[in-house]
């Protein structure tokens, strides 16, 4: 990279300056709500709602976090959600990647029909009640498998992956591989997968985040307290700490105190539920730099 810099033209220097400036600006604008959530989670909720908390936290207290963590169900929730996310993502990837590869092969005649078969379900569905009855009859409700199997294939992810395979795996590669007597299985595992780190990590991230944030599956299909995912636990805590619109029965000396900080809970919950997912991101990001490999193999 260094060697190139001396050949920089004036317009390229200017270009770089604009890029960095814009990025800095975008960074500030987009980072702000995140920063706001962090400071709001440790501030006096009254001051937050009144608009006094903008740059620095005010009336600092850890009430929100205290409320979240004094509920012991949260640890059960964490445990369950981690299990569901790992199992669910693994299973989803096992289904999605090979299917996407198949559908990316131009010689696979049935592929357009199968794509239609998949895409159709993005729009048409039988509704919640028939799905509930089916899952119940299969005995999947109230088990961890309801988080793993029924909604394992996300058609959107499948389409994106297929499109990626189609466009970034050079066609000559398969031709030369078949000349060596390479099967699809072999080609997929030893050439396509290693070349597709970027898309694999993105799709994995999509699945991880979707499964991590999913509360609806738990709400509808889980009745057992010990199988409840994190998001449901957090929802309960959030609702228990809301400012009660009904007002009925609340009040008194201490009521004022509770209400003052209760709203901090909703910010704390975002931090508590998001931090673990953020941990995944650096792993994903690492692979964005590895596009180099295509060139290497080709060369």
């Amino acid at each position: 990279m260094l060697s190139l810099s001396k050949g920089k033209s004036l317009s390229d220097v200017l270009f770089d300056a604009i890029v960095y400036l814009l990025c800095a600006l975008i960074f500030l604008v987009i980072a702000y709500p995140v920063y706001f959530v962090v400071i709001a989670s440790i501030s006096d909720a009254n001051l937050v709602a009144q608009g006094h908390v903008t740059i620095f936290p005010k009336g600092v207290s850890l009430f929100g976090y205290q409320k979240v963590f004094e509920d012991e169900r949260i640890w059960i929730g964490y445990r369950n959600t981690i299990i569901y996310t790992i199992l669910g993502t693994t299973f989803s990837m096992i289904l999605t990647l090979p299917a996407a590869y198949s559908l990316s092969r131009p010689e696979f005649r049935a592929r357009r029909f199968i794509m239609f078969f998949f895409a159709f379900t993005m729009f048409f569905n039988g509704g919640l009640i028939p799905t509930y009855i089916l899952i119940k009859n299969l005995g999947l409700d109230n088990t961890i498998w309801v988080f793993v199997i029924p909604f394992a294939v996300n058609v959107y992810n499948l389409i994106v992956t297929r499109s990626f395979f189609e466009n970034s795996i050079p066609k000559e590669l398969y031709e030369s591989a078949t000349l060596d007597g390479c099967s699809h299985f072999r080609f997929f595992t030893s050439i396509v997968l290693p070349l597709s780190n970027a898309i694999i990590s993105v799709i994995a991230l999509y699945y991880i985040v979707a499964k991590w944030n999913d509360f609806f599956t738990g709400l509808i299909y889980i009745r057992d307290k010990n199988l409840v995912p994190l998001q449901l636990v957090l929802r309960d805590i959030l609702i228990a700490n809301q400012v009660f619109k009904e007002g009925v029965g609340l009040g008194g000396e201490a009521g004022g105190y509770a209400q003052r900080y209760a709203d901090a809970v909703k910010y704390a919950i975002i931090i508590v539920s998001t931090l673990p997912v953020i941990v995944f991101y650096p792993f994903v990001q690492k692979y964005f730099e590895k596009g180099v490999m295509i060139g290497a193999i080709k060369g």
Partner: protein
Amino acid sequence: MKKYLAVIMIISILMLLTVGCTGNRTNESETGGKSGTEQSESSTIDGKAGTEQSKSSTTDKVTLTAIAVTHSLTKDIDTMTHIKKMEEAAGVTVQWEQVRSGWGEQKSVLLASGDVPDLFVGWAINDADFSQYPGLFQPLNELIEKFAPNVQKMFADHPELKQLSTHSDGNIYGLPRYQRFWPRNMIRQMINKEWLDKLNLEVPTTWDELYNVLKAFKTRDPNGNGQADEIPMDWAPGTGSFNATVMLSGYGIVAAFGDGTGWYVEDGKVKNYFVDERYKELVQFLHKCYKEGLVNPEVFTQDYTKYQALGRGTDEVPLVGFTFGWEPYDRVGAKWAPQYITIPPLKPYADYDGPVYWDYNYYGLNYGANHIVMTTKCENKEAAMRFMDQFYDPINGMQVLFGALGECIADNGDGTYKVLPPQDPQMDPGTWKWTNTLADAGPMYISDSLNLTLGSDMQALAEYDKVYKPYLDAIDVDNDVWPGPFIKFSQEDNSEMSLLWADLSNLINSHYAKWITEGGVEAEWDSYIKEMNNAGLPRAIEIRQKYYDEYKAKQ
């Protein structure tokens, strides 16, 4: 590699087939076998009443399953000693499943698929469900006669509770709550008395006087911090609870203003105040205030959180002069509550000599239908009925509302009882109650003979409500009150009403907000009335009138 992939494929297919087809439950190690009975196989619904045989499995104790929809603060029902005692007294063990949030989403799935427990408790089932799911709920009429002495006594003492529990088809599917002690009004209007005193102003009694007071609040810095940060008047977002519409009561309209639907009854005629001339005048008045900056400029765009936060002011000064809420502690917080007083309804103008009332919501606050419901899937109906009856024992009812004897209520030993202050000094009495028992969500009957001293919160509320007494006493309950919970709409009518209301409420909301912020009510009133009529207001009134007339005929 090829082998490796093939193995993964085969495993994944096998996994799918085994789990999918044999319904193999891998997670049977649940606590207390909770899900055991409620997942009994058949999800078909046959209308026939199940035979009253006791369950074959257990010794002589009957096991019932129940879903309880409670307040989100409420602790696990398993840990409530008074409920445990009621189970013992009825000779049953109840496996509770408690829902604290998201019931709306779960309910239609459970009911429509017929996957229901023996009992529903709390805010679970409403009248519309009985019509929509025929055959799913157990008619209790005969069972009550045979096995429920407490319920019988309640119905004898308070015949209106029987009426409240009787569905339009003549069956009783659910049993009510009657909590007796609650006030008649849900809304209180309050003003900062210290500000008034400081500015040498009287408590306003008419809209015009209010206008002058608000004007002074705005311009004369009553909180004394040198900034014009006072919000002279503020009300809650929407058209419902704690809205300025309650001021119509000073103009002779009796309604439960908290529901925001505008329905009321005047001389036996069902009407809607959102198309009343008096409402038009109120809107004109509020626009005048808004235009001059006397109303919070964000009154229509703030959320409830912000509304409450503004009420609490800053650490140094209160911010809001005149506002609406449940009571001052709840509305402006403990710090500033002592500065506020509740004030009587305001007359529209000084020489108005028509009737003056106040928000009337006695039915809504004290009565509720269907707080406990049995399904036809229940196998031991006798035991279930005996358990349901326990809630209507007066001593049990009291504990359902306020918490267990010894923990939340003291037995004075002379037949009188007293609600104890919270054991946790951090908690207010309301939170304490909601945490320890089913409270207002529970089925209960507080008999008129029960001698119970209420907690400090309810006593304070009674104090605040003294100013409203004459205006509430003046109400002709028989002819001027919409008998809310006693009206049982048929499924068709209910469905039609909800479709009509989806359109009407939009017209109401948008015009209300626009007229107050921008004005124009005089010019647009006629076209608004026309639009309301086109959107089906006459039909909605017709439906309601029909039910009201039927109700009156039965009285």
